[in-house]
């Protein structure tokens, strides 16, 4: 609790005591009103003062003014006990709201508190604490256990475990050693790390994320704007109705002045829209907080709202559904072991740095005895010819594409793969077999796609710049609804526009990419989602939603969080407006007392706020 809240608690406790005393003495002694007066002042002496000050400032109809008029009115017609009770409960409600809002503010800002305060810069062999802004590229910094990594860099000395939870939502520590990249915003758990800085603070991961979080409030959800607009007309309308209620019946229909003023005062008690206005942004804020805790950053509550009703999800292939890294997926020897075929290919490709050669060497995984490799000749566009010693014999290997085999008159006896690139191996004129290298589908993709369908996404589409048949094969394997291959980056925008025109009314289209080359598409979609945002500036800038890790399955969490938030917002709006209208009707009819009005009003705000806080508490069911 803040100091202000503690003081208020004491004031309210005192007020309640005097109120109870007043109730006991009432009817037994004529001076019982003194207790009520003290109780009123203890609870709300500042309310009328603020009302006056705000009126001087030109602010009418604020909650202070309304409460002042309501309670003074009640006192005027002799409902002293009710006036005091209303003030007391109103203040209890305010205190609770204040406390709850503070609490959730704190829990969310703590969550996003990744801003490093200092960096330990090594200067002339000595450590010095400096502002991360002052560190230049190439400087060396030291990060001790428990400290936040202040800038992006490369580890030059030491090993340690990093907590990247604030960045990725991943709770498993990441081990780093020399030459590993290290991102600002993570926390060093153990070990002392010496790091060479590779980015200025302004360009570092932590600064990018902070900027994103700060701007998250810029784009507001429709529900948020609705409630602000509603509040703007709600108060004047209720106050006008109260005025009519107080004056018209007694004047025109001979009603009792006291009765109607009392009813009008009840109106004023429920005329403050604050609970409603607080509970909606509080829910969205909680939703954004829950998302970021799962490694999903959203640039505004409008996107959180949009994610709740996705109709079409369009994926980029390479780097999104697939890892974008080529791996040996199949080894198919004519005779002999797979191991042997792979060994020959790895020896032959030993000196090559071509991506295909790299994946072959990675798949072989053993050390290569260079002395066995003789003359290697690269045949550009075809492959290589390599002489490898095999005991006494010199093997003459041809490793390359189908064209190379054709050129050398070697017959390929097996079927190549559709989805990947095939590498054929021959020893002289004898065909040995093929090795298939392809982009691998991310592990969690099947689960992600199933989850999206289960969440009611109508259409899953894949766009790719890759060959149409490769796209088709991947699409079939994954069970996608539509696949469009052979697209240039510009074509992707066109396709997305076409899909946008075909989506269901009131629903949204999301595009998921890795942020590379797809900025225009990310911008065109209703929700542009970039994956693997961690460390990729392009993705963070272009997208509306950034998934910090490389897991498409986070989309399911994002949808679940946004739906939960949307549900809470809807509940709050309907519930709060409903209760207020009900109280107004019952008060006008004289059924509800001022007691009922204040209980209803405070009660509904407390419940709405407690409900809003639920948005923060999303647990993924992994």
């Amino acid at each position, binding site marked *: 609790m803040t100091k202000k809240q503690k003081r208020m608690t004491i004031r309210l406790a005192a007020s309640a005591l005097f109120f109870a005393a007043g109730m006991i003495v009432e009817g037994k002694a004529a001076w019982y009103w003194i207790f009520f007066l003290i109780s009123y002042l203890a609870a709300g002496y500042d309310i009328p003062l603020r009302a006056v000050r705000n009126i001087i400032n030109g*602010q009418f109809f*604020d*909650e202070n003014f309304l409460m002042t008029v309501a309670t003074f009115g009640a006192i005027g017609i002799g409902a002293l006990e009710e006036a005091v009770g209303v003030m007391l409960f109103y203040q209890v409600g305010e205190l609770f709201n204040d406390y709850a809002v503070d609490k959730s503010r704190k829990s*969310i800002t703590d969550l996003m508190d990744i801003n490093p305060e200092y960096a330990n810069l090594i200067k002339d062999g000595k450590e010095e604490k400096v502002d991360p802004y002052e560190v230049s590229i190439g400087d060396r910094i030291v990060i001790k256990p428990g400290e936040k990594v202040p800038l992006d860099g490369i580890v030059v000395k030491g090993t340690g475990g990093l907590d990247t939870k604030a960045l990725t939502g991943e709770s498993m520590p990441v081990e780093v050693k020399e030459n590993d990249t290290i991102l600002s915003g993570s926390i060093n758990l153990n070990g002392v790390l010496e790091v060479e800085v590779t980015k200025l603070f302004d360009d570092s991961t932590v600064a990018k994320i902070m900027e994103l979080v700060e701007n*998250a*409030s810029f784009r507001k959800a429709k529900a948020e704007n609705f409630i602000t607009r509603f509040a703007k007309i709600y108060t004047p309308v209720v106050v006008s109705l109260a005025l009519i209620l107080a004056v018209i019946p007694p004047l025109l229909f001979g009603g009792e002045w006291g009765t109607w003023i009392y009813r009008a005062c009840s109106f004023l008690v429920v005329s403050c829209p*604050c609970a409603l*206005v607080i509970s909606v*942004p509080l829910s969205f804020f909680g939703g954004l907080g829950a998302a970021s805790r799962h490694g999903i950053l959203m640039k505004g509550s409008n996107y959180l709202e949009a994610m709740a009703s996705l109709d079409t999800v369009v994926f980029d292939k390479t780097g999104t559904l697939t890892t974008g890294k080529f791996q040996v997926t199949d080894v198919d020897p004519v005779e002999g072991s797979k191991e042997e075929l792979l060994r020959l290919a790895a020896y032959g490709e030993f000196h090559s740095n071509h991506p295909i050669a790299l994946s072959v060497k990675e798949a072989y995984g053993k050390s290569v005895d260079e002395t066995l490799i003789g003359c290697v000749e690269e045949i550009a566009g075809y492959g290589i010819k390599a002489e490898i010693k095999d005991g006494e014999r010199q093997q003459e290997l041809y490793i390359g594409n189908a064209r190379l085999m054709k050129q050398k008159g070697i017959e390929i006896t097996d079927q190549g793969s559709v989805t990947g690139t095939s590498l054929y191996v021959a020893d002289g004129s004898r065909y040995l077999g093929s090795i298939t290298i392809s982009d691998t589908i991310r592990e969690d993709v099947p689960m992600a796609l199933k989850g999206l369908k289960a969440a009611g996404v109508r259409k899953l589409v894949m766009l790719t710049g890759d060959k149409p048949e490769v796209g088709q094969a991947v699409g079939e394997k994954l069970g996608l609804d539509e696949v469009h291959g052979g697209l240039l980056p510009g074509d992707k925008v066109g396709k997305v526009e076409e899909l946008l025109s075909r989506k269901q009314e009131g629903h949204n289209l999301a595009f998921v990419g890795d942020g590379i080359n797809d900025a225009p598409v990310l911008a065109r979609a209703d929700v542009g989602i970039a994956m693997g945002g961690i460390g990729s500036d392009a993705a963070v800038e272009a997208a509306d939603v950034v998934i910090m890790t490389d897991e498409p399955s986070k989309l399911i969490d994002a949808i679940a969080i946004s739906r939960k938030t949307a549900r809470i917002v809807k509940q709050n709006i309907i519930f709060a407006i409903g209760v207020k209208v009900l109280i107004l009707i019952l008060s006008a009819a004289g059924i509800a007392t001022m007691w009922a009005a204040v209980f209803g009003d405070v009660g509904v705000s407390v419940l709405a706020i407690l409900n809003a806080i639920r948005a923060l508490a999303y647990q993924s069911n992994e």
Partner: protein
Amino acid sequence: MKKIIKLEGLCCANCAAKIEEEVKKLAGVESAALSFMTQRMTMEIEESKSDEIIEAARKISNKIEPEAEFKVIR
């Protein structure tokens, strides 16, 4: 240029909406958003008028919510 202002102690959501609306009406303010939850106001303003705009925004904030402390972050 972008200006970020913190309104520390802002405790009334309705007031936040009122402040946002009035700041939006100031000449030279292209856009403004005040988040009640983060207590931050982000404004996109004309650079040449930045001092006047910030002063005017400070006045609006003091008028509507005198309890909140107006701090220019950057």
